[in-house]
C-alpha cells in the first residue's frame, strides 16, 4: 500500500504544481503560494514513502528489489532511495518544489515573487511529468524476489550517500535563480532590487554545489583506490560547468545590486547556469557517457531529458532576446574600477565554463558524427582529458586570481592604478618569495611555482584588504567587520588554499607499488612500512581482506589497515585505503591483489599526497564563505520596509543611496 500512497502523493504534488504555476502567472498570488507549499509537502511525503519502502525492504517495488538488500546497513538502505535513477529524480522533484515553498514563505510579496513561483511551478510540473511517466520509482512487480540485488558497493560510503542531495540542492537551486530571471524578464525589471533579491538564492545554490562537488572528489580520493580526486571525467565536468557560471553570476550580481550595471549579462548567466545544470543531468542520466559514474543508462530517457533542456533553454533564451534590449544600461564606469575588475572576473569565468563545455561535449559529438558515417572513424575517436583542461584552464585561473586583490581594493566607478599597485607591493613580494621557495623545494616545475604564486598572492591580498578595512579600529574593528566582508574573505582564502593545494598535490604526489610478503619492509619518503600479513574480517554485508602494516616515521610506529572488500550480493569489490594524516599531507596505503606466482605476497600501493587537505579544506571554505554572505542577507532583510525597497530606482546618480553603503562588503 505504501508505494501506492507515494505514487498518489507524487500525483498530488504534480497537481499542486500545475495550480501553483497557473495562479502564479495569472495573478492569483495567495493561491499560488499555498499550492507551492502543498506541492513541496506532497513531494516530501512521497519521498518519505519511498524511503520507507527501502528501509522496510519491500521487494515487490521494482526499484527496491533492484537496489537494496536485506544485509545492507540502515544508512545505505536510506541512501539507496536516491542512489539510483528513479529515486534521484524524485529527490530532484522534492528539492525543486522545496525551493518554491521556501520562496513562497520567505519572499516579499509582489510581481517578482508571484511570477517566479509561476515559472518555478512550470519547472516542477515538467520534472514531475518526467518522473511519473518515464521513470516512476513506485512501479510494482508481480513476483517479488526473495531478496534484493543490492546497491553498487562503491556507493556504500557516507560521502557518496550525501553527494547527490548536496549536488541537487545546487543544481536545482539554480532552477529558482532561473525562475527569478524569467520573472524579472517578464516584468521587464532587472534592476538593483531584483539583484538584491536574487543574490541569496544564487549564493545558496552555488555553495551547495561546491559542497556536492567536493564530496564527490573526496569520495573518489579515498574510495577508488588510486588517490586521484579529479580526473576531468565528463560527469565531473558536468557539475563543474554550472559551478563556474554560478561563480560568475554571484559576482556579476554584485555589480547589478550595488551599481545597477551588467543587468542583461547577469540575467543571461542566471539562465545559462540552470541550462548547464540540466545539461549536466542529461549527461549523467542519459547514458551518453561511458564512465565510472554513469550508472544509469537508458537512451529513451536521455532523449526526453534533451527535449526538456531544449524547451527550457529555448524558451528562456527567447524571452531574453525579446526583453534584454529593453533593460536600462547601468551607470558609466572607468575600465580601472571595481566594475572593471568584476567584468574581467566574469570574462575569465565564462570562458572557463565554455572551454570545459567544449572539451566535454566535443568527443561525444565526434563519436556521434562517426556513427552517422559523416566523418571517418579515426576523426571520430578523440579523447580530451587532463592535459587539455590543465593547459587551457591554468591561464584563465591565473588571470582571474591576478585581478582578485585589485577588485577587492578598488573603489567603484574609478580607481587609480598606481596607488593600488603600490599598496599591494607586500602581497607581490610575499607571493614571489613563496613561489621561488616552493620551486626550490619541489624541483623547479613551472606549474608548481605558478600555483603557489597566485594562491599566496590571493591569500595575502585578502589579508591586506581585511587589514585596511579594519583601519585604525584594529582587532576589535576587524572582528566586527560585516559578515559579507568575512564571507568574501573566507571564500577568497579558500580559493587561494585550493589552488596551492591542487598544484602542489598534482606536481609533488609520489607513489610506488611494492610486492610485500609477511615481515618484509618497504621504504618510501622516509617512512618504513612493515607488512605483517592479511586476515579475513566479516563486515555487515561484505567480507574484507585486511592487511596489517606497521608504519614507522621519526621513531613513531602505528598500525595501518587497508582493506579489500568483497560484496557477495553484487559480486563486486571495493578498496578501502588506509590514510595517515600528517601536517604536510596524507600517507596513503592501498591493498592490491595477491601475486599470482607467490602466495602470501601482496601488491601494496603506497602514495604520498602533499597538501591534499588544502584542496578539500579550500573547497569547504569557499562554500562557507558563500553561506556567510547569504546569512548576512537574511539577517538584514527583516527591517527593510516592503514598499520602499521595491520602488527604488537604479542608482545612476553620483551618490550611492545610503542603505546600499558598504560597497566593498560583498563577496
Amino acid at each position, binding site marked *: 500500500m505504501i508505494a501506492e500512497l507515494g505514487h498518489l502523493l507524487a500525483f498530488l504534488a504534480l497537481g499542486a504544481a500545475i495550480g501553483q504555476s497557473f495562479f502564479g502567472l495569472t495573478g492569483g498570488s495567495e493561491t499560488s503560494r499555498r499550492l507551492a507549499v502543498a506541492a513541496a509537502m506532497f513531494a516530501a511525503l512521497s519521498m518519505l514513502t519511498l524511503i520507507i519502502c527501502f528501509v522496510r525492504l519491500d521487494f515487490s517495488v521494482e526499484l527496491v528489489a533492484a537496489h537494496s538488500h536485506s544485509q545492507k546497513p540502515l544508512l545505505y538502505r536510506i541512501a539507496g532511495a536516491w542512489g539510483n535513477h528513479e529515486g534521484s529524480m524524485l529527490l530532484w522533484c522534492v528539492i525543486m518544489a522545496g525551493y518554491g515553498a521556501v520562496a513562497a514563505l520567505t519572499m516579499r510579496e509582489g510581481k517578482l515573487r508571484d511570477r517566479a513561483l509561476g515559472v518555478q511551478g512550470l519547472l516542477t510540473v515538467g520534472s514531475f511529468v518526467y518522473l511519473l511517466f518515464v521513470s516512476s520509482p513506485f512501479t510494482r512487480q508481480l513476483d517479488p524476489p526473495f531478496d534484493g540485488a543490492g546497491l553498487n558497493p562503491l556507493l556504500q560510503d557516507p560521502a557518496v550517500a550525501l553527494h547527490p542531495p548536496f549536488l541537487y540542492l545546487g543544481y536545482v537551486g539554480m532552477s529558482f535563480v532561473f525562475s527569478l530571471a524569467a520573472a524579472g524578464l517578464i516584468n521587464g525589471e532587472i534592476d538593483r532590487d531584483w539583484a538584491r533579491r536574487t543574490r541569496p538564492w544564487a549564493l545558496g545554490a552555488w555553495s551547495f554545489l561546491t559542497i556536492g562537488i567536493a564530496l564527490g572528489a573526496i569520495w573518489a580520493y579515498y574510495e577508488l583506490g588510486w588517490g586521484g580526486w579529479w580526473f576531468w571525467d565528463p560527469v565531473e565536468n558536468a557539475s563543474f560547468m554550472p559551478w563556474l557560471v554560478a561563480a560568475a553570476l554571484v559576482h556579476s550580481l554584485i555589480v547589478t545590486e550595488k551599481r545597477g550595471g551588467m543587468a542583461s549579462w547577469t540575467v543571461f548567466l542566471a539562465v545559462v547556469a540552470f541550462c548547464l545544470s540540466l545539461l549536466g543531468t542529461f549527461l549523467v542520466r542519459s547514458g551518453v557517457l561511458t564512465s565510472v559514474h554513469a550508472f544509469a543508462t537508458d537512451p529513451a530517457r536521455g532523449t526526453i531529458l534533451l527535449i526538456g533542456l531544449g524547451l527550457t533553454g529555448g524558451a528562456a533564451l527567447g524571452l531574453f532576446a525579446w526583453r534584454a534590449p529593453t533593460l536600462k544600461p547601468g551607470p558609466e564606469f572607468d575600465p580601472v574600477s571595481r566594475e572593471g575588475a568584476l567584468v574581467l572576473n566574469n570574462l575569465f569565468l565564462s570562458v572557463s565554463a565554455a572551454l570545459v563545455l567544449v572539451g566535454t561535449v566535443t568527443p561525444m559529438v565526434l563519436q556521434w558524427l562517426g556513427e552517422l558515417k559523416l566523418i571517418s572513424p579515426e576523426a571520430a575517436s*578523440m579523447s580530451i582529458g587532463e592535459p*587539455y583542461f590543465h593547459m587551457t584552464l591554468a591561464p584563465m585561473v591565473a588571470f582571474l586570481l591576478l585581478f582578485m586583490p585589485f577588485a577587492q581594493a578598488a573603489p567603484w*566607478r574609478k580607481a587609480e592604478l598606481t596607488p593600488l599597485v603600490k599598496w599591494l607591493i607586500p602581497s607581490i613580494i610575499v607571493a614571489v618569495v613563496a613561489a621561488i621557495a616552493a620551486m626550490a623545494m619541489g624541483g623547479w616545475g613551472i606549474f608548481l611555482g605558478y600555483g603557489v604564486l597566485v594562491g599566496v598572492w590571493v591569500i595575502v591580498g585578502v589579508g591586506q584588504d581585511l587589514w585596511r578595512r579594519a583601519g585604525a579600529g584594529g582587532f576589535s574593528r576587524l572582528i566586527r567587520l560585516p559578515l559579507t566582508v568575512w564571507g568574501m574573505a573566507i571564500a577568497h582564502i579558500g580559493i587561494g588554499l585550493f589552488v596551492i593545494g591542487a598544484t602542489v598535490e598534482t606536481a609533488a604526489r609520489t607513489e*610506488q607499488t611494492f610486492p610485500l610478503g609477511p615481515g618484509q619492509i618497504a621504504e618510501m619518503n622516509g617512512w618504513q612500512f612493515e607488512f605483517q600479513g592479511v586476515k579475513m574480517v566479516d563486515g555487515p554485508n561484505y567480507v574484507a581482506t585486511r592487511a596489517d602494516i606497521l608504519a614507522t616515521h621519526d621513531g613513531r610506529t602505528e598500525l595501518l589497515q587497508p582493506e579489500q572488500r568483497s560484496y557477495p550480493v553484487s559480486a563486486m569489490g571495493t578498496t578501502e585505503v588506509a590514510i595517515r594524516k600528517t601536517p604536510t599531507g596524507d600517507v596513503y596505503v592501498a591493498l592490491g591483489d595477491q601475486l599470482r606466482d607467490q602466495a602470501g605476497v601482496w*601488491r601494496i600501493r603506497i602514495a604520498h599526497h602533499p597538501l591534499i587537505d588544502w584542496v578539500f579544506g579550500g573547497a569547504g571554505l569557499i562554500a562557507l564563505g558563500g553561506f556567510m554572505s547569504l546569512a548576512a542577507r537574511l539577517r538584514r532583510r527583516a527591517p527593510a520596509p516592503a514598499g520602499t525597497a521595491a520602488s527604488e530606482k537604479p542608482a545612476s546618480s553620483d551618490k550611492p543611496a545610503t542603505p546600499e553603503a*558598504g560597497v566593498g*562588503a560583498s563577496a
Partner: protein
Amino acid sequence: MIAPLIALLLQAQPLEQPLPDPVQEARAQSLMRELRCMVCENEPVSQSTADMAVDARRMIRKQVAEGATDGQVRDFFVSRYGQYVAFRPPMDGWGMLLWGFPFVLVLGGLVWIGLRLVRNRPKALDPVPDDRNAEGD
C-alpha cells in the same frame, strides 16, 4: 650488528622500478597520466592495475630512458591504438581550433569590452566615496 643485515634482506623493491634520473621519471609519469588505459573505463595508465597498463608504463619508461621525446612516445601509442588513447588532443588542423578558441574568446571579449568602454567613455569620473566600512546591505 645482525639486525640491519636482516632488515636489508627483508627490504622490498618496488614492483615497477622508477627511472634513476628523476627528471626522466617525472616526464615518464606525466606521460602515463595522459595516455588512456585501453581496457579500463576512462582511466589513464598511471592509475590502472590492468596488465595492459603495466605494460604501457614499462614501455613509456623504456622509451623515455632511450631518449625518446614526449612527442615520440605519444606518437608511438597513437599509431598503435589510435587517437582515442591520448587524453591530449592533437595540436594540428582542427585541433588548433580546440586549443586556441578559449584564448580567442578572451581576446575577443577584451576587445569588445574595451570598445564599449571607450565608446561610452565619459570625460572624467570620480571614485565612489570610500564607504566600505559601513554596514553592507
